[in-house]
């Protein structure tokens, strides 16, 4: 049974594409029948393609609380045009369908006439649009520990998801150069990307799906995320300083704060791993989901943008959930204990979100992101004595407590540390109160030609103003003893636009309007 025959209540009939075979996710696939406004997909049919019955009233994982699959707080600030449905707890499967529910226009039999040989049968009619997405409510609370459920994080909101969101386990970060010189084409790309991001963060495929389309055409979706849960995928877009040159007439819209980062002591930056006109940060609890997302966006972008560099990350090194243990970096230390919590609205307002008085207007509700690829000299670090390691960080290795303290979260007493200790130099008290929301990930990109792990920290930090955030902190880290064991080899800075409000909005709309 298809969505065409049973459209979800309150939605328009999908517009069918005359040919329906060359959808690229580029504007041909505007779908009006996507009831995902709330990250929840109304089930209108039984999936006929799975042999497993859907759980309808009992979650199968009983060991975990299920905070995200039931709207518990109905005081959502965002208007929803659909009553939140209860009684559909978390589904156990991700939709494995073509992701559209749009019926193909009748395919002329003559299409097959030329295919005397080979070629799979053309799927006529709509593919089964089965599967629901975990219903995370479209509120401001993106920090609930939803990892256990593989739920969807709402895409729409005042701020982009992927910043205050509880940090996921995996990262795929990509920086792009814009190749087109046509402003309208760039705008179209951002719109197409936004629609694809809506689909993917909800656990759907992009465009016309991964199979069931015309046999002679490559499928719109590459397919490797079929059957996987949404996995709290977030996609966060940013604009680099180079986007504001003469090409697109954005010169006068460039935020004063979006300057190229100064050179810092010890920088050894590879231009091929630095900069970029655009970035997309994909975070998810499943690495395949994050990689799939970047891959689709890169493909939609061919001819308009080109991947400049990208970075995979694992093992989050920062936490935005204060009750959780601070994760360890590849040096074995807890670092970033004093991170800004995703739930700390006051701190987010003070240190992360661009305010009206900061300007420019198009960036209000957005932020600035500094990305640094920090290579660690793993092997030499591992040969360093425990005492020296602890002195360098200013924490003990086991508990993570600051020097002279007992517990990890005890307030550091800076004078007890060496003047060259990492924690002391990075601490807000040493930097005029400067704080950032850190969201870094470890990376290991195999080995270099010398048998050393190519590993380290992919540092990601969101802040309201770089001049009062990353820049002073990094300057004061010039005398950090840790520098003997690390090197900054990649660097980029982006303005992060505010969130996408609804289905009609798109990434960067205010900038280009």
């Amino acid at each position, binding site marked *: 049974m298809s969505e065409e025959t049973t459209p979800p209540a309150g939605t328009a009939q999908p517009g069918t594409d005359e*040919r329906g075979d060359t959808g690229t996710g580029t504007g041909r696939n505007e779908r009006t029948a996507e009831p995902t406004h709330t990250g929840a997909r109304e089930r209108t049919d039984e999936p006929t393609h799975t042999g497993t019955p859907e759980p309808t009233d009992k979650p199968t994982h009983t060991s975990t609380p299920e905070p995200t699959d039931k709207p518990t707080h109905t005081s959502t600030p965002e208007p929803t045009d659909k009553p939140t449905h209860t009684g559909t707890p978390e589904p156990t499967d991700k939709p494995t369908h073509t992701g559209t529910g749009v019926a193909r226009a009748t395919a002329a039999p003559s299409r097959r006439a030329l295919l005397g040989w080979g070629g799979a049968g053309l799927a006529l009619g709509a593919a089964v649009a089965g599967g629901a997405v975990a219903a995370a409510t479209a509120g401001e609370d993106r920090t609930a520990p939803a990892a256990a459920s593989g739920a969807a994080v709402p895409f729409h909101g005042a701020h982009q998801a992927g910043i205050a969101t509880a940090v996921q386990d995996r990262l795929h970060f990509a920086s792009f150069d814009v190749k087109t010189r046509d402003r309208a084409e760039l705008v179209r790309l951002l719109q197409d990307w936004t629609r694809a991001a809506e689909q993917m963060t909800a656990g759907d495929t992009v465009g016309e799906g991964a199979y069931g389309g015309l046999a002679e055409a490559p499928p719109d979706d590459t397919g490797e995320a079929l059957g996987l849960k949404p996995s709290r995928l977030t996609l966060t877009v940013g604009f680099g300083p180079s986007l504001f040159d003469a090409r697109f007439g954005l010169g006068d819209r460039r935020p004063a704060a979006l300057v190229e980062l100064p050179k810092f002591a010890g920088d050894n930056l590879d231009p091929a791993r630095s900069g970029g006109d655009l970035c997309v940060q994909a975070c998810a609890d499943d690495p395949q989901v994050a990689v799939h997302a970047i891959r689709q966006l890169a493909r939609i972008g061919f001819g308009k943008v080109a991947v400049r560099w990208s970075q995979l990350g694992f093992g989050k090194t920062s936490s935005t959930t204060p009750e959780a243990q601070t994760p360890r970096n590849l040096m074995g230390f807890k670092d970033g204990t004093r991170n800004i919590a995703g739930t700390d609205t006051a701190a987010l307002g003070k240190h992360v979100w661009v305010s009206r008085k900061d300007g420019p207007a198009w960036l209000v509700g957005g932020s600035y992101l500094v990305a640094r690829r920090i290579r660690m000299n793993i092997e030499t670090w591992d040969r360093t004595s425990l005492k020296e390691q602890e002195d360098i960080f200013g924490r003990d290795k086991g508990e993570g407590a600051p020097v002279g303290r007992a517990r990890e979260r005890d307030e550091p007493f800076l004078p007890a540390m060496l003047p060259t200790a990492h924690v002391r130099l990075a601490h807000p008290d040493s930097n005029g109160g400067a704080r950032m929301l850190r969201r870094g990930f470890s990376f290991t990109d195999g080995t270099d030609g010398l048998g050393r792990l190519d590993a380290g920290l992919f540092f990601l930090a969101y802040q309201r103003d770089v001049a009062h955030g990353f820049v002073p902190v990094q300057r004061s880290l010039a005398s950090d003893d840790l520098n003997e064991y690390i090197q900054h080899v990649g660097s980029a800075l982006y303005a992060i636009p505010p969130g996408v409000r609804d289905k009609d909005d798109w990434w960067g709309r205010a900038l280009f309007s």
Partner: protein
Amino acid sequence: MQPARLSVVTAAAALSALTAVTGCAEKSDAEDGSGAIAVTAKDDSCEVSAKEFPAGHVRLDIENKGSKVTEVYILFPDDRIVTERENIGPGTKASLTAEVKAGDYEIACKPGMRGEGIRRPVKATGGTAAKRSPEMDAAVAAYRTYAQQQADETLPKAKVFTDAVRAGDIEAAKKAYADSRIGWERTEPVAESFGDIDPKVDLREDGVADLEPGEKWTGWHRLEKALWQDGKLGAEEKALADTLDKDLAVWVKKVGTAEITPTSMANGAKELLDEVATGKVTGEEERYSHTDLVDFKANVEGAQKSYELLKPVASKNDAELVAELDKQFAALNTLLDKYRADKSTYVFTSYDKVSGAQRKELSDGVNALAEPLSKLAAAVVE
């Protein structure tokens, strides 16, 4: 070339071998007139005794009454060869038999064994004929002509190269090398559809390990290594030059029999860009001569030829795609032109002089074209 893979063209060719379209030539002794069609070939005419005949087993009784050696063909509407008979001398007779399905065909006499020949339309009747689009047939026929022409023009260019090798003239051979490959590179998917020729003439060094015991590495790249790496032309290389001539001659003969469809043309265009993306951009194809950009350009030209021929159909089905392809072909050609001083020649910058950043730019250009090109096949299947 890549290690052999079953391309669309190949699959079709393999399958067509199973269909009831087989030709065989035989000496004509029997004059029993059992429904045979008489073909009288002269220097300026081609007379056929019947315009229609029942589908099934067909025999042509040919007489060459002209002064030139001639060839006679039965052709599909898209110029694919059903069967042929060559070298029919003046005043001699020959016969030709074939199994043909119902449909339209042409009988062609080629006095002097050159050119399009003198064509006569004929029809095999009975049974059901597959419906065909004349527009598509025209596109396929034009592409077939192009592929044949590229192959024909390659032989003399290859001979300049192989003559220089045989003469032991390293410099002249180096000069002629890249030029001799252009026709091949433009139509590579067709050439690859004959699985046996490609590994003989275009095998790269990394494919040598996959040769069967007793098989030797032959072809262009073996000679490329001798010229640029070893700097020597010995008896072995001279023998390899003879082999290359011989293998290319086989290719030229086979081109006309390739199964070509609008879909395979579109996929062939996409495959040419795959070739560029995986072999030329990386500098792997011409690792010793560094003439990768010549191959690159030829691949793009071949892809563009297919595309231009399919454009009338594609633009009806997907005007947006056609606009994008026009734009990206132009952009890639403009980018390639940065690497040659004179657009009337194929003298391109040596690829070892092309920086990493420039290669990235070329790679981005290839992706920008290849992505929409991958959607061309769908736009011609209607």
